[in-house]
């Protein structure tokens, strides 16, 4: 089975794209012979993460055989303070989500300075859910890529209690290969295949990772 670990549905604001609805994305996946995909709505990134989660949930309900819903979580509007009671993790379990994606650079918070990140990691670990930390969304459009060193230092801070997590690793040419390697010293971290943007050193780096810690990302 081919599983796309990092697919999207929704609009792409920077240039026209042919597929945005769940049905269109599913059709594209089928065309690529990808049987299942972890999805998240781009609305969660650009507009409002909870609105996007509702969209993702609806899409997964419509295509349960193909789409695995991942919830995107962030800070509350106008506060920078995330209150667990506002969005109890259990609710996402009941709604059928199976993982988390975080976009700190798009949602204006810092991984190291927001306590809700730790809470999410702990809750996700309890559910044995992966947490995806995309370094960037396709390219450096709009905001810079997430610094891999931040991820690494967060892992180190968490020490032996670090929960299962998985960085999406679409690195730029000069950025992140070292950070990528450092991050993967921690056995609970996984990488997805979009590290292979075509840079030979990226590919070489990804080849040093054991196969069971690499996932496929078709870039949808």
């Amino acid at each position, binding site marked *: 089975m081919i599983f796309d670990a990092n697919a999207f549905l929704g609009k792409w*604001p*920077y*240039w026209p794209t042919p597929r945005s609805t769940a049905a269109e994305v599913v059709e594209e996946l089928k065309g690529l012979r990808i049987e299942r995909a972890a999805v998240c709505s781009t609305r969660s990134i*650009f507009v409002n993460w909870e609105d996007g989660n509702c969209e993702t949930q609806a899409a997964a309900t419509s295509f349960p055989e193909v789409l695995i819903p991942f919830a995107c979580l962030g800070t509350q*509007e106008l506060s920078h303070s995330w209150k667990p009671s506002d969005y109890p993790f259990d609710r996402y379990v009941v709604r059928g989500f199976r993982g988390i994606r975080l976009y700190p650079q798009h949602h*204006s918070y810092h991984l190291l300075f927001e306590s809700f990140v730790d809470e999410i990691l702990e809750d996700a670990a309890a559910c044995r859910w992966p947490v995806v930390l995309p370094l960037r969304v396709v390219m450096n459009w*709009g*905001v810079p890529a997430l610094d891999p060193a931040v991820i690494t230092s967060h892992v180190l801070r968490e020490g032996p209690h670090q929960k299962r997590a998985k960085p999406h690793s679409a690195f730029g040419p000069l950025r992140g290969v070292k950070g990528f390697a450092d991050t993967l010293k921690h056995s609970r971290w996984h990488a997805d295949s979009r590290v292979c943007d075509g840079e030979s050193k990226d590919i070489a780096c990804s080849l040093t990772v054991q196969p069971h810690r690499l996932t496929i990302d078709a870039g949808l």
Partner: protein
Amino acid sequence: MIVDAHVHIGKSTRLQINMDGEGLVRIADSLGVDKLCCTDLTALFYDMHEGNRLLFDEMRRFPDRILGYASLHSTRFDEEALDEIRRCREVYGMRGLKIYSTPEMSIAESATIPILELCAELKMPILAHTTPAECEYLMARVPEVQFIMAHAGGQPFAHGDWNRAIMVAERFPNLYLDTACSTVDTGFVEACVRALGADRVIFGTDVPLLDPWPQLAKVRETQLTDAQRALLMGGNILRLMGVSA
């Protein structure tokens, strides 16, 4: 009449905003602001069609208070963007256009030119989150468009090199400066008026992103004549939008 020429409405996770028309009108009432020129955040950062439609709904809810800028989430959508601008002008009654630029994706490129040309034809002023250098590029190619440099050149963090903004605006008579800035530099408003004249400087707050009170105070309390102040705080933007006071 006081008109705020730079207002955001709607939702944005990045900017951590969730504000509807009712909330904005409440803020405007507390400030003594009569009209709000709004741009919808969904239109600006995600989906222009959906966001502009949402803004139109708010314009209908508050017809005496909210004026609309059509917004584009990208200038790279060719005819689709041009059609959306026409729809916003003709169907929604929006009076201006808002576009956004970032260091990673500058709008100082050929794709933006048809948009400027259309706005010049439709007499829609453009409020643009741009640098002075970007304005220089664009105004040199479409000098007839009415162009408002948001934050007096503040990009990306809403505080600009306003001295350079003034230098560029001095070369282009249709280039205007917006006063909304995340800093309150001594002498900023006076310098703009002295160099460009009171009819080229436009009051905006960037509410709810920025606290509107210092934005209001720095213009209202500046040493200007009543006539100059009236131009900055409403006359200029209403004139550009073709709206009677």
